[in-house]
């Protein structure tokens, strides 16, 4: 398998956040989630099936996502995921947390030596 330098591993827990963000736009199946993440990140993030599906099942088990079978754009039946209300709250909170964390981390990383 070829490995490109501009792809990198996601930190723990980030994948859940990305998935929920993508699902927040409306009911969507697993394959489309992977595609959408890849698209938005301009191919920098490629979600492996081996990580995607266990994550989806975990989120569903935690009742952050719900699922429904319905025909996809190609006509085949696919499993569509949706955010539950619990999931929506969770996403808001986690997004805030994430923003605060990254702000703080970059504040420290970008600070000049004099500032310390």
């Amino acid at each position, binding site marked *: 398998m070829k490995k490109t330098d501009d792809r990198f591993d996601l930190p723990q827990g980030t994948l859940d956040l990305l998935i929920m963000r993508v699902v927040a736009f409306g009911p969507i199946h697993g394959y489309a989630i992977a595609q959408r993440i890849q698209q938005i990140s301009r191919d920098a993030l490629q979600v492996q*099936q*081996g990580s995607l599906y*266990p*994550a989806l*099942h*975990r989120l569903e088990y935690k009742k952050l996502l719900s699922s429904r079978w319905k025909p996809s754009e190609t006509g085949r039946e*696919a*499993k569509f995921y949706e955010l539950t209300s619990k999931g929506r709250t969770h996403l808001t909170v986690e997004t805030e947390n994430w923003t605060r964390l990254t702000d703080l981390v970059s504040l420290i990383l970008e600070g000049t030596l004099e500032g310390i």
Partner: protein
Amino acid sequence: MGWLRRLFFRERLEADLDKELRFHFESQVADKVRSGIPESEARRLTRIEFGGIEQIKEDCRERRGTMGLESLLQDVRYALRQLRKSPGFTLTAVLTLALGIGATTAIFTLVQQVMLQSLPVNRPDQLWRIGDQPHCCDWAGYSQDSDGEAGNWSLFSWEAYKLFRANTPGLQALAALQAGNMPLGVRPSGSSGPPDKANGQYVSGNFFQTLGVSAWRGRLFVDADDLEGAPPVAVMSFHAWQEKYGSDPSVVGSAYQINGRAFTIIGVAPAGFVGAKMTSWGLPDIWMPLATEPLMLGKTARIKNTRTDWLDLIGRLRPGTNPKALQVHLQGELQGWLASHLADMSPQEEAVWQKQTLRLSPGGAGFSILRRDYSESLLLLMFTACCVLLVACANIANLLLARGLKNQRQTAVRVALGASRRRLVRNALLESVTLSLIGGAAGVAVAWAGARLILYLAFHMLERSTWIPVQATPSTLVLLFALGVAVLTGVIFGIAPAWMTSHAEPVEAMRGANREVGGGRHWAQKALVIAQAAVSLVLLSAAAMLGGSLQNLEHQNFGFDPDGRYLASIGSPMLANYKQEQLVPLYRQIQDRLSALPRVRNVSAATYAPMAGNQWGHDIRVQGKPEPGPKDDVSADWTRITPGFFDTIGARMLAGRAINEDDNANARHVAVINQAFARKFFENQNPVGRHFGPASVGNAGTYEIVGVVQNIHYVTWGFRDPARAMYYIPQAQTVQFDQPDLQSDELWSQNLYNIVIWAPEHPANMLMQVKKVLSEVDPNLVMYDVQSYSRVIQGTFDQQNMIASLTWLFGAVGLVLAAVGLYGVTAYGVEQRRSEIGVRMALGADRGSVVAMVLREAFWQVSIGLGIGIPAASGTGYLMTSQLFGVTPWNPLLLAGTAVLLGSAALVTAVIPARKAASTDPMQALRSE
């Protein structure tokens, strides 16, 4: 419930999961095709990108949360399938486990009932006993010093009981029960048959109420029944009612003759209630109020005697009472009571009365003599049973390891296909636990049979009819115990194989093909064999030590000759309404009639005979010696005998003469002492002609010593202790003592409970003839037993016999298991090294050297096992010193013997695979490479 749905719609979920992933796969392929890649290439690429689909599925299942339960069921099914597939292995393992778990559970059945159970009464936790010593049955005097410990009171007089009961606000109720037992002859009023023997116990009127027990039928005692002059009533135990009276409801309310006195049976105690005292020598069949004691015993009654302590006290605490505070309060009452008897005290008692004290102890389990007698032995048995279980565990671990090796490739494939290691380990553990649960279930059956066997060995082997309330049927707690042991053993013997599995390297296994891999397993197997050898040695040497000890006990010199002697035990003639003055003629008649039997050489009677389970003792004073200090031991045992006793029992006179026909009511009072008495009170002086008597000093001139007899062992304990001082007085002489307790003993001792018959030719129907003669003399005499004296002695060591037999049994099982283990490992090793051996033989090794090579290895393991086992065995010996008689824990001869036994067993088991190895055909072995 989501998880429930998920559990039950597992197949649907599986299908969904599969469909979902396939959709992803197909979409990806479709995308690739759309971008111009030919379909077959697109599929190949997608498959590579996807990786292991099964692994993804497994991950998803795990995330779904029902993984635990769902896959558990799956794995159990898998484990059962595996076990079914190898019935030989399963059967061996289950049998081994059933033996191991069964042995442990059988012992636990007894441990639970003897040591852990509470009385079947209301709120046993509120019951407290006054006193903490297991004393029985009578104690005379105002001090209870024993073994150098300042008076710690455990037995009480009736007067003290009344006082405590009236003045202790911390107790809701305080009950008293006789510490000993009262042999009874019972028959329905108006019937003329011989009386049934029964075991009686005096209890206070509030006894049943205090314990919170209500009647099965009729009613139980109330305080009004326990008043002087109240109509005599009695309560029957459920067991006696069922066994002796066939649960006849008309028993309640009927009149009975108990020892010739008219009693009414007013009720039956509930099933399972056997009183507050657990003993191995008989539980009460009949309870009588304390107030009926004078009716039964007349002048010898103890109830009014303040010097005689004969009651156990058990009380129910008022909620919120602090036992410590109550103890202090009762100590004060005891002191107060003693102070009121200062005038009656001997100088020795006066010196120590202020040091007398008492302690409370939890009474919920009753006064368990059984517990005291058996707890050490039971713990020892528990230990040996656990050893057997350990050996069994090692065996099964070995079997599993060997099987794991065989299944190595399968395991490797499963790892390669994406089975998580956690799941594999769990699988292995689950399989062993499933196995041990099946073994445990079979073990419960073994335990039931085993407990029955032990009870039989312990209590019924010698035709002893004593009933004890211990059952072989497992209780809930026992079943839980078996379950716990099964799971624990499953985990213990499953750990090694599971660990090995978790380290399975798929690549290595695939590559290894036919070659031997995983040397680590070999090492583990050998370690297990070594452990087995060591534990077996411990078991065998423990068995040998206990067996040797039993031999020593049974064949020690008791100071008399049991050969050709018979012991008959009868109930008290006084209780059968004989008058004092009729006793001497009665025994004369018995003696004459028995002597007239063919081939009987001599007959003699005694208050109690050696090893008959009795002992009477008191302090004495020797004429012409200064008054002893409070710490001096001046006690001596005594018994009454008829002329010719020493000849009859086979004991030698050392000086002077024996008691003869001339020692009658008209002659001076004489006594024969034993050697220990002479040494204790007269050191090197000649005792013949000197005088002594029971304390106090006023009686010092009572008996004149006319002879010294060799020491005879009378009591059924203390075989390691020096001989006890003892004196013998003639049946025909009665002394008038001023002290009421001495006078009571003086009269009571004239009931000669034991008759010794000497028939050196061992006539065949001796026992029947003796019974017949005795019932001809008087059908009203209660006959207890006729036994040969060697049987009596054997019976004394029933318990030791049981322990030794069981330890031998456990040792044998352990040895067989260890041998099987060694065989398995050796045979397996030979199988693994077949090609190596083939090469060796092709290169010129002969059969002999191949055999030697295999044996060497087996012997290495056994030798290391012995190296560990020998110190462990003698360590165990030190731990059980209290159980040993005449056997030292460090016993090189015995250890060497057991080591040789183990070694030969190992040799036999290792020779079989060694010969098989030697018969390897080099060509064949190499070809199969």
